[in-house]
Structures are given as C-alpha cells and as structure tokens.
C-alpha cells in the first residue's frame, strides 16, 4: 500500500508496539522576572523503539524544551510542574541531581546540538573529547577508550582517524566537527539520539551527508531518533513520524505521509502553504499573520485561533480535544468535529494531497 522501504512505519508500530519513552500530560514552567511562563502545556507523547520522530514548529513553540526534559537539561529557572516521563520503566521526573541523571544523560539518551563549534571545547584535542566520554561512562582504561574512539571516528566518516585524533576543533570543517559531535553522542551506544537542528548551521551538500550518516548509524546501532527541526525538507527526508508543535502543545501527529499528504490541522496547513517550493512565482507566498501567543498568561480556547483563518467561534472559547483520523494520525482541531462546517484546505495542501494519492496509486499498481 505504501512505498516500501524495509518496513513501513505502520507495520513497525503494529509489529513492535514497543514504547521506549512515554511522556504523559507533561507541563513545564519557567520563572522569568517573577512571572511564570508555561512552555509545555499538557503534552503526551509515545516514542516507539527504532523509529525516527521529527518534532516541527517555529521558535518558541517548545520543541527544544520538551526534549530537554528527557535528559534533565532544563535551564535552572525551569521545572516540570506536573506529568510523567517514563523511560525503560524509570520515572525521569523524579531524578533531581546531576549525579542521578548521569546514568541517563549521555549514556542512554544523547543529544546532538545545532552548532558543532559551541558543543566542542575549542581548547581540547578532538581525540580527548571523545575518549573522556568513554572513560567516564564505560569506566575503561585510556588505551581501550582510544581504540573505541578511533573506530567511532572512522564510523562517522573521518579519514585518517589516527592522524586527526590529535587535531583541535578549529582544524576541522563545520561538517567534520558535526561528525565528531555525533561520534561523541554515540560513544556510549545510547538508546535514544536527540538531534536538535543538527544541520541548520551546515551547507546543503554537507547537510545531506550528515542526514545520511545518522540514518546509516541508526540502522547499525539500532537507536531511536528524535529530530527537532523547522525545515520541512529535512523532516520529509528523515522522519517516520511527525509531531507538529504550536505554543507549547502538540497540535497534530501522524506518519510522515499523513502529515505531508493529508494534514488536518490549520497550523500544519499554514506551514505547508508558506513553503516557497509549492508557490507559483507570480503569486505572493502565504504568510501566517500575527505572532504566537504569549505563554505568560493562560490561553483560552485554541492557541492558534487568532492567526487561523479557519477559526470557528468555539476555537476562541474552548480548547479542542484530539480527534483520531487514522490509527496513527491525530489532530487537535475543532474542524474535525462532526458538527463543524466543511473547511476547504489551501491550494498547497490540495496539491500535496493529490501527489500523495498519485504515489499511493502508483505503488499499489506496481505491486499488483
């Protein structure tokens, strides 16, 4: 039914409903200048073992904050107000001190950040930055740690690893540095790799190589990947499933094909409509009017309503629940309520829908 790569997401979810991490009703608050800001507003999310989940949304939507709670890296003015995060049977919200977090952070859940220049220490040799992680977490003697580090460097595509072991970060190009950051993140064979805009600071040609590298390593090491990105092109490339975030909430989630070819939430519609790829040259691009709401005060109704040209009266009064579209596809919009009037999605969304249908038809014909 779907274009076949090894296994489709649906099949994988059906076959191995193995939830590796589960967040329930999570609320994260920050204290800023004596005022309280709610950055994450009641998010529930299941992460399936072996999948690649992409979290998309504009800056300030809370996508980074959400994943920081998985590694205990919230800034000191932030705290988990309520809710739970269960990873391998362990309740992560109960962990308080850095010492307690050590067994998880960097060991079982690692993060690759956006800018490789700021996540490497400019004063330390590359080799030492990899071995110190291995020595710390796996308690191995230096000679053995070096062996593992060298093989990791080769794995991530560094040629002449032996010679480049003693180089400093400035002697590496941006793409090479990001490869090292990935090597460090993988040093302890994590179960989950969080990639926070891992290629935003890189060139397109390098970006494509890094995305390929992470995909290959995932196949080899069998970890689960969370991508945080605002680039829908990257999402289309890497993701099995997609979660769309707006103002501290997940507003829609589903398989990558469901989100691109049959999105249901008006915010997802708006994101797809604003892409220059689908635009006609002589027409203006669709721009989402207004700005996201302030998270300092309570939000009444649907947070996207003031910017939403499809908003119904109820959107300003009551928060919509999640409606189920398919076994894997959910959207938090009143438009899916049986009582709601029929809404005509924007042209760009219709184009995508048509494309998706055509592709599905072609592959099913090819299979017959």
């Amino acid at each position, binding site marked *: 039914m779907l*274009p076949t*790569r090894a296994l489709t997401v649906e099949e994988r979810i059906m076959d191995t409903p193995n939830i590796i991490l589960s967040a329930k009703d999570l609320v994260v608050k920050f204290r800023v200048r004596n005022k309280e800001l709610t950055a994450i507003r009641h998010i529930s999310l299941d992460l399936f073992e072996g999948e690649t989940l992409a979290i998309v949304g*504009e*800056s300030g939507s809370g996508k980074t904050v959400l994943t920081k709670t998985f590694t205990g890296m919230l800034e000191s003015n932030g705290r988990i107000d309520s809710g739970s995060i269960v990873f391998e049977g362990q309740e992560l919200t109960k962990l308080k001190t850095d010492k307690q977090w050590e067994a998880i952070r960097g060991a079982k859940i690692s993060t690759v950040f956006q800018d490789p220049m700021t996540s490497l220490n400019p004063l330390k040799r590359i080799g030492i930055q990899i071995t110190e992680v291995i020595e710390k977490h796996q308690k191995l003697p230096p000679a053995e740690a070096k062996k593992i580090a060298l093989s990791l460097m080769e794995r991530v595509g560094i040629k002449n690893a032996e010679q480049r072991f003693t180089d400093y970060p400035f002697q590496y190009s*941006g793409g090479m540095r990001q490869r090292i950051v990935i090597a460090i993140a993988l040093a302890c064979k994590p179960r989950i790799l969080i990639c926070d805009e891992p290629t935003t600071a890189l*060139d*397109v*040609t*390098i*970006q*494509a*190589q890094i*995305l*390929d590298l992470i995909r290959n390593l995932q196949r080899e090491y069998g970890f689960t990947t969370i991508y945080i990105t*605002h*680039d*829908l*092109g*990257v*999402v*289309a*490339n890497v*993701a099995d499933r997609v979660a769309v975030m707006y103002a501290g909430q997940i507003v829609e989630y589903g398989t*990558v*094909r469901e989100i*691109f*070819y049959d999105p249901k939430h008006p915010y997802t519609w*708006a*994101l*797809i409509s*604003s*892409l*220059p*790829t*689908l*635009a006609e*040259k002589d027409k*203006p*691009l*669709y*721009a*989402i009017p207004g*700005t996201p709401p302030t998270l300092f005060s309570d939000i009444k109704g649907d947070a996207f309503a003031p910017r939403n040209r499809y908003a119904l009266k109820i959107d300003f009064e009551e928060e919509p629940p999640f409606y189920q579209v398919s076994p894997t596809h959910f959207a938090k919009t009143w438009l899916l309520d049986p009582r709601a009037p029929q809404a005509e999605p924007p042209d760009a969304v219709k184009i*995508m829908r048509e*494309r*998706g249908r055509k*592709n599905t038809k072609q592959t099913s014909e090819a299979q017959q």
Partner: protein
Amino acid sequence: MNAAASASAHTPADVHTNEPLLSVRNLEVTFKKGNTSFSAVRDVSFDVMQGESFALVGESGSGKTTIGRTIIRINPASKGEIYFKGKRISGIIDKETDSWVIRNIQMIFQDPMASLNERATIDYIVSEGLYNFNLFSSEEERREKVFRALRDVGLLEEHAERYPHEFSGGQRQRICIARVLVMEPNFIIADEPISALDVSIRAQVLNLLKDLKRERGLSYLFIAHDLTVVRYFADRIAVIHQGELKELAQTDELFNRPLHPYTRSLLSAVPLPDPDLEKNKKLLVYDPATMHDYSKGLPSWREIFPGHFVLANDKEAEEYQEMYR
C-alpha cells in the same frame, strides 16, 4: 574567459532595459596574510539588469558574500572591474562617486539580531544614512522619510521610538530593510536575508522584497544557499563554487536543465518537503578531481543553450549539449 559572452548572458524575455545596471568583469578578490595569499573570488563576470533579481548561489566559503562586499567596496578588488550604471566603481574612485555608490547600492545582512545597534532607537537607526549624507532639509522632512520607510515595510510610526530588543526577528529584518529603503537605492544586495528567520516569517520578508521590486523597479543581487528560496525569488541564477562561477542561466532553465556536475549535486542535496520524493532520491556528490579531466583543454565560459552558460572544456561542452537532446 570571454567577457563579451557573459555580457549577453540574458535573454530578452527577462530584461527590462538593455543596459545592465551592474556589470562585474573578471573580478578577482585576494586576501593576504603575511606571505600567503588566497584568492576567494577568481575571474567572475556577470551582469545584473535593471529590475532584475539575480541570485548568487553557493556553499559557505564559495566567495558569494565576498562578491557582494566587493561591490559595495568593503573588500577591494584585486583584479577586474565593477561598473554601476556604466560608471566604474571598483579600484580608486573619487569621493563623489563613493557617496553615489553608497546611496544607490545598499546591503541587507543575514542576521538581524547582529546588524542593529542595540543602543539606538529605530528612529536613529533608520535615519543614520540620512544624517551621513545630509539627505534632508528639515527635521520634519527627516521624520517623514523615516515614517514612510517604516510604513513601507509594514511597521508602525510609533515603532520609531523603540529599541531593537523590543522586536522579533522578522520585525528586525524589516527594520534593516527600512534602513535600506530610506536611502532610495536602485540596487539592493541581500545577503541571505531570510536564513536567520523562522519559517513562518520568511514568507513575510520574501513577499516584502518582491513587492518592493515590483513597485519601485528595484534590482537585487540575492546571495543565498537555499535553492528552493532562490527558485521562487530570482529571475536568473549564477552558481559559484570555490570562487569561480560554474553555471549561469534563467531560473527555470537552470532547474530544468542543470549542466555542471556541481549544480546537479546542489540540486540533489536540497531537501524537498515531499516524503515520497525525498526518501527515494539519489544524492549526487561533486568530486572535482574525478569529474573533470582538464589535461586536454582547459575550461572556459561557454553558452551551451541560449542564455545558459557553463564553465567547460570542448569535450564537456559537447557532452552538455547532448545531455538534454
């Protein structure tokens, strides 16, 4: 290098007048440090016509920003010339020409967070150019010019009294554009103007730049690495790699019939927001060492199809011509 050939590097369809607004001829920019020197830009020639959006596309370190900076005289040209409205603006020029250049060619920078003076009000930031060139006769006239520029970019008059930190990224980029517009330039160099902005705001800024072009006949040199944006915005595109132009064509022509292996590798690398396409695509890698054999015949700038130029030697030129038969 055939300068005459690239001078005709446009087809009539896209050209509003036949006189190029800006001509870059055999430009070379060399940076020196002690005894070592490095040519960031080598033998680059192109024209930008009146009312045209011309895009320079390449990866970081390709020299695209250096070309922009050389045009507005931040970096000196080591070789070659730059002409604006037929007048030479590279090398040593008199003071009058210098201020003429500054008033007519303005630049928008990539990061609106870094390019505004945090301690100045928007009013001052927008009118700094007016002060420098005494472009107003009274305080009222200056205020009116600032207000008009703010309105043009969709900001309010009351914003003039505020400071940069009170604005979002998209609004700050509009302030940068207002500061450019107040000078009433003919030609704007936009160096990655939207890559530091959020997706939902990019559309606003792109629309604004496009509207300004249509309403005032502005011309752009649009410097970018994102081919999807360039496809929407530019009339013609030049692809630059390691300081050399590799290919130049009308936008649709370049996307439909890419010739140079570097252009094709760039096109293959752009992530498209379409999962079926994206998950079945083949990545092309550009490896100059194995892809070009210049032992027999050095490459030169050639017109393969009308208005479609590429850097190639005889053998490659033949192959390119065959490619889309």
